[in-house]
């Protein structure tokens, strides 16, 4: 995928899975969301956006025309959201746009109003004459929004109606990204607005081949993959997301570092604290960067095992490197702590992958969390206890 991955709203009862997923689901209000979205997007299309270039006149009124160029502002925006800065606000106004010079026979591509997604679509569809129908997914990418139900049946029907699409095109066909399917019931959309749904390829870059082949997707276009570069671009946001809990952990480490034979020593707090925070940081890097990048090559199925191994091996290297200055309890504490931190952090990467099932993640967590907690407590005892043995 060139775009992002994301996760689905949970229905506690399998029989309710068809109905319990809309935005009107009462249970959705008390649900926990780990990243924003939330409020509906402003719906007025602004003609001063840098990606808009004039307009196309249609029987239903003028439609803004977008171009396929990606400028420095788009690149800067992409870089920012990859670091998790202002991601919720990175949106385009929902509604109908024109790409090239579409007419009544031109295909209609449906997408999300996360600007990163929108940019990928207008870039990868370069050269096509097409309509782009942007849903209000509240600034969330297609897959995540499909899971939350905002890229959903009702929103498709609503946008088709609001845009008066049936007056603009003579056919009755919408091309939806395949990864929107968890939020959309194709047969309900036909009933709701008369348009039939064709699921296009997973990746926007295949859209031209898909159309050229007469709307036929090859098996490869239908499969999700997770290559190294896709994993790497997701790591910065993993780190920024951990900065707050890591900061609190660092404070605790500095406090613990001062404990010793002299009750509390400010000098020791600083000296030993720095070392402990370095171990924490190394553990986070092992779990949030090294493990995702090496994911297919690290042994084991569960992310906690993969992360624990990556952290453990790196910790062993650190112990070898610092063997002159580390006493045995401290060395052992380093080994255990880095393994535990990396294992825990790596487990969080399940949320960014396109292949982990919630049943699997839950099973993994039930097994891994007690082990990670045990290793952490043991490491803490060794480290604090070690101060008394000097």
């Amino acid at each position, binding site marked *: 995928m060139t775009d*992002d991955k*994301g*996760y*689905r*709203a949970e*229905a*506690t009862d*399998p*029989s309710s*899975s*068809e109905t319990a*997923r809309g935005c009107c689901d009462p*249970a*959705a209000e*008390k*649900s*926990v969301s*780990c*990243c*924003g979205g939330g409020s509906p997007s402003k719906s007025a299309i602004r003609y001063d956006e840098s990606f808009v270039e004039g307009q196309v006149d249609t029987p239903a009124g003028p439609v803004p025309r977008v171009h396929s160029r990606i400028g420095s502002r788009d690149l800067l925006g992409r870089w920012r959201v990859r670091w*998790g800065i202002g991601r919720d606000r990175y949106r385009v106004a929902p509604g109908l746009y024109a790409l090239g010079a579409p007419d009544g026979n031109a295909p209609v591509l449906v997408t999300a109003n996360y600007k990163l997604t929108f940019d990928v679509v207008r870039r990868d569809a370069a050269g096509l004459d097409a309509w782009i129908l942007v849903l209000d997914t509240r600034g969330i990418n297609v*897959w*995540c*929004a*499909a*899971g*939350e139900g905002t890229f959903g049946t009702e929103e498709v029907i609503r946008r088709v109606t609001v845009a008066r699409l049936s007056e603009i095109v003579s056919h009755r066909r919408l091309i939806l990204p*395949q*990864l929107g*399917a*968890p*939020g*959309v*019931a194709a*047969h309900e959309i036909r009933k709701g607005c008369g348009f039939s749904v064709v*699921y296009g390829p*997973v990746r926007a870059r295949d859209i031209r081949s898909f159309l050229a082949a007469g709307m036929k997707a090859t*098996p490869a276009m*239908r*499969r*999700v993959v*997770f290559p190294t570069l896709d994993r790497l*671009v997701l790591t910065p946001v993993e780190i920024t997301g951990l900065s707050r809990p890591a900061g609190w952990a660092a404070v605790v480490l500095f406090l613990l570092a001062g404990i010793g034979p002299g009750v509390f020593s400010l000098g020791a707090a600083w000296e030993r604290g720095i070392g402990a925070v370095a171990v924490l940081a190394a553990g986070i890097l092992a779990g949030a960067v090294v493990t995702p990048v090496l*994911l*297919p*090559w690290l042994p084991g*199925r*569960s*992310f906690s095992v993969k992360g624990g191994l990556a952290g453990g091996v790196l910790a062993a290297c650190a112990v070898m490197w610092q063997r002159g200055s580390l006493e045995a309890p401290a060395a052992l504490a380093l080994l255990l702590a880095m393994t535990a931190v990396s294992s825990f952090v790596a487990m*969080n990467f*399940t*949320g960014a992958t*396109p*292949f*982990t*099932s*919630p*049943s*699997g*993640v839950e099973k993994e967590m039930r097994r891994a969390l007690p082990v990670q907690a045990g290793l952490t407590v043991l490491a803490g005892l060794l480290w604090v206890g070690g101060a008394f043995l000097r």
Partner: protein
Amino acid sequence: MDGFRYMDGVATVRLDVAACIGCGMCEEVCPHGVFAVAEGKARILDRDACMECGACAMNCPTRAISVNPGVGCAAAILTGWLSGSKPTCGCGG
């Protein structure tokens, strides 16, 4: 996905073959090739590849497929446990 397999024996996806009309939507929407349709009926080819996204169940016109869709995200599940509510997640970067 070659090289990317998660846990075996946990996926909740189920197919009621009697209710299946062989329309092929499940095969089309599944990003992991879990289903294959032959001779007018779908069958589950690779249940352990399922990530429980729920696309197949959503798009099955006869509701022959059931799956318990949810958040395959440790942070969201943990928050859900701690706060006692339903985990959802729009994450991914």
